[in-house]
C-alpha cells in the first residue's frame, strides 16, 4: 500500500470516538467601521512601530516626494514594472526630469539578470492591493508585471498605497477581495522591512530582504 493510502486509511479508521467539529465564530476578529482617516492613522502608527516609513501624498505629488526621498539616500537605480500605473507614471516622469535614479524595468526572466538584480539595484517600487490598518500591513499580489523579487531583493522597497483601499483587518480584506475564489501564485502581507532578533533578541533590519520600507500613501 502506498504511503498516501496507509496514512489516509489510518486517519479514516480512527479507533476513538467521533471527533467534534465545533462551529467557528469569527466575530471576535471584527473591528468597528473605521473611517478612511481613522484607518490611515492606525495603519501609519502600526507600520511605523515596526520601522516602516509613511509619507502621505497625492496623485500629483508622489513622484516629487519619491525623488526627494531617493536622492537623500543616494539611490542610483530604481526597479520599476513594465505596465503598472506606478511604472508608467515613473517612466513618463523620468523623460522630463533628472532628479530620479536610473530606471530599470523588470521585463525579463530572473535567470538572465540575477547577479545584476542582487548586486546593483538600490530600490524596487511596487503597487499594492490595499493595506490593513490593524496590523499595519501591505497586501501584495506579485504578478507577471510586478514580479515577486521586486519587493524582496533591493535594499529599499517603496510601495504605493491608496488610502481608499485600506481595510480594517486581514479578515475583512480577505473576504472583501474574495480570496477564497482565487489565489495568485504568490500573495503577500508585508509589515515593515526585513528584520531579525535572532542574536540575543536585538533587532537588526535588512537581514535578507529590504532594510527600508517606504510607503507612499495617496489620499
Amino acid at each position: 500500500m502506498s504511503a498516501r493510502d496507509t496514512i489516509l486509511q489510518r486517519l479514516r479508521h480512527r479507533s476513538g470516538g467521533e471527533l467534534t467539529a465545533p462551529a467557528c465564530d469569527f466575530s471576535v476578529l471584527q473591528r468597528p467601521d473605521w473611517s478612511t482617516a481613522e484607518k490611515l492613522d492606525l495603519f501609519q502608527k502600526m507600520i511605523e512601530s515596526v520601522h516602516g516609513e509613511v509619507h502621505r501624498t497625492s496623485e500629483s505629488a508622489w513622484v516629487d516626494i519619491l525623488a526627494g526621498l531617493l536622492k537623500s539616500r543616494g539611490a542610483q537605480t530604481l526597479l520599476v514594472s513594465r505596465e503598472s500605473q506606478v511604472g508608467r507614471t515613473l517612466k513618463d516622469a523620468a523623460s522630463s526630469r533628472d532628479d530620479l535614479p536610473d530606471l530599470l524595468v523588470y521585463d525579463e526572466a530572473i535567470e538572465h539578470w540575477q547577479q545584476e538584480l542582487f548586486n546593483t539595484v538600490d530600490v524596487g517600487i511596487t503597487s499594492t492591493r490595499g493595506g490593513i490598518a490593524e496590523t499595519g500591513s501591505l497586501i501584495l499580489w506579485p504578478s507577471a508585471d510586478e514580479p515577486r523579487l521586486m519587493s524582496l531583493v533591493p535594499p529599499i522597497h517603496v510601495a504605493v498605497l491608496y488610502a481608499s483601499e485600506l481595510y480594517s483587518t486581514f479578515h475583512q480584506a480577505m473576504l472583501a477581495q474574495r480570496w477564497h475564489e482565487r489565489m495568485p501564485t504568490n500573495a503577500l502581507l508585508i509589515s515593515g522591512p526585513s528584520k531579525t532578533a535572532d542574536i540575543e533578541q536585538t533587532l537588526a533590519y535588512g537581514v535578507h530582504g529590504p532594510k527600508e520600507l517606504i510607503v507612499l500613501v495617496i489620499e
Partner: protein
Amino acid sequence: MTDTAEKSPHQIDVKEFHPRARAALHNPQIRQNFRKAMDGLMSKRTAAFEGWDLETLRDLGANIRKRALANLPDLLEQLEQKLTENGIKVHWAVDADEACKIVRDICVARDAKSVIKGKSMVSEEMELNHYLQERGIEALESDLGEYIVQLADETPSHIIMPAIHKNTEEISQLLHDKTGTNLSHDVNYLTASARLQLREKFMNADVGVSGVNFAVAETGTLCLVENEGNGRMTTTVPPCHIAVTGIEKVVPSIEDVTGLLALLTRSATGQHITTYFNMISGPRKADELDGPEEVHLVLVDNGRSSIYQDDQLVDTLRCIRCGACMNHCPVYTRVGGHAYGTTYPGPIGKILMPHLIGLDEGRHLPSASSLCGACGEVCPVKIPIPDLLVRLRQESVDGDKLHPARVRGHGAKRNTVEAMIWKGWGLMHSRPGFYRFGTGIAAKFRKLQPGSLGGWTQYRTAPKLAPKTLHQRMKERQQ
C-alpha cells in the same frame, strides 16, 4: 558545558534528561540567556493581546483546529487535489526516513547539489540536513538563528528562536571562527555579514526547502510566517521549492488562517503580525518572470496518525508551533531547550515527543514539569497540556486501568516497589479501619522515619509525622 551537552546533536540519548538538566542548572550563562529572553517574550505577548477578548479568540483558535482535525482525511485529499490543480506536486511520507528519501529523490532528479533552507521544525524532526549531507548534497540553513545553530553543529534550543541559548559574544566568536567575520559585538554588523554570505548561497542554490505554517485546502495555498525574508528567498529564488509539513497543518479555508494568524504571531513573539506572511499557491506560470518552476509538498505523518487515534491525545495535534508554552514554562526557562534532548523542547515537546520516540526513550519528559499549568493557560489553541502530561505520566507507569495505555513504550517507568507502595496507599485510604491502624502505627514509630527521601530531600527537609494522628486528636477534643 558538560560532555553530555557537547555530544553531536544526532547522538543524544533522550533518557539522559537529568544529567543534562543538572548541567544546565549549573551553567549561569545558559540560565541568564533564557531568563532574559523568556521574560521579554512573556511581556511582549501580554502587550500584544491588550484590548483583545483573548478567551474568545483562543476559543476560535481551538475550534478552527478541532474542526480541521475532525475532517483531517477529507481535508488532506482536498488539499492534494487543489495543489495538484495548481501545479504543485504532492508527496506522502509515513515516517521521517521516507520524507528524507522523497526530498533526496527530487534533488537527485534535478541533479541538485545544494539546498538552501528556510526554517522548518518538521525538517529538524526528519534530521534532513544530516541525511542530505551524508548523501553529498549540501543543506544550508538561511534563517539567521538556524544558520548560527548549524555553524555551531547544534540543534535549535527554541522552536521560534533557535539560537536563544547563545549571547552576542558567543555568536561573534562562532561567526569569526567559521566564516571569517571580524569579531564584533555590533549586532547590525554581524547581521549584515550573514546577509552577504547567504545572498551568494541563495543565488547558487539548486533547491529551496521550507516548512509550512498553514496549508489551505480550499485554495491549495501554503502559508509561511517569517520576519527575515529568508523564507521568501528560499521559496522564490531557487528553481525548485520543496515544502515539508506535518499532516496536521491543513485547515479548510483561508478564513481559518486569519484567526490562527492573529493568535500565532502574538503568542510567539508578541508581534501583531510578522514582517512577511507569504502565501504560495503554485509554481511560476508561463508569463511570470521569477519564482520556482517546480513546487513540491511533502506531507509527513511520522507518528501523527497514531496520536490521532486517541480521543484525548489527539488534542496535541492542534498545536500551531508558537512556542508560548515554552516561553512561559518555569522548567524550560531554567534548563533551556537542549536539556530535553528532543526536536521539540518544553511543554509541547513533552506531550508530542513521547509519541514520536516512544515512552521508553522519552520516559522522563512528562515528569519534567511542575504541573503549574502556565502552558495550558497561554496555549492559543487551548491544548490541555497539563492534563495530557498527567495522562502520559500514567501511561509511563501503566497506571490507569480506565484508560488503557496506548503510547509506544508505555510502562517503561513502572517500578514494582513504587507500584506496591501506591497499591498499599490505595488500600489504606479506602478502608477506614486499616487507615486508623496504619496512621496510629506510623505516629507511634515516627522516630524511625528516614531523614533522607531521595530527590525530595536534596533541597528540602523531610516532612515529619505528627506525634498524634488527626483521629486521635479529634477523639481527645471530644472527651
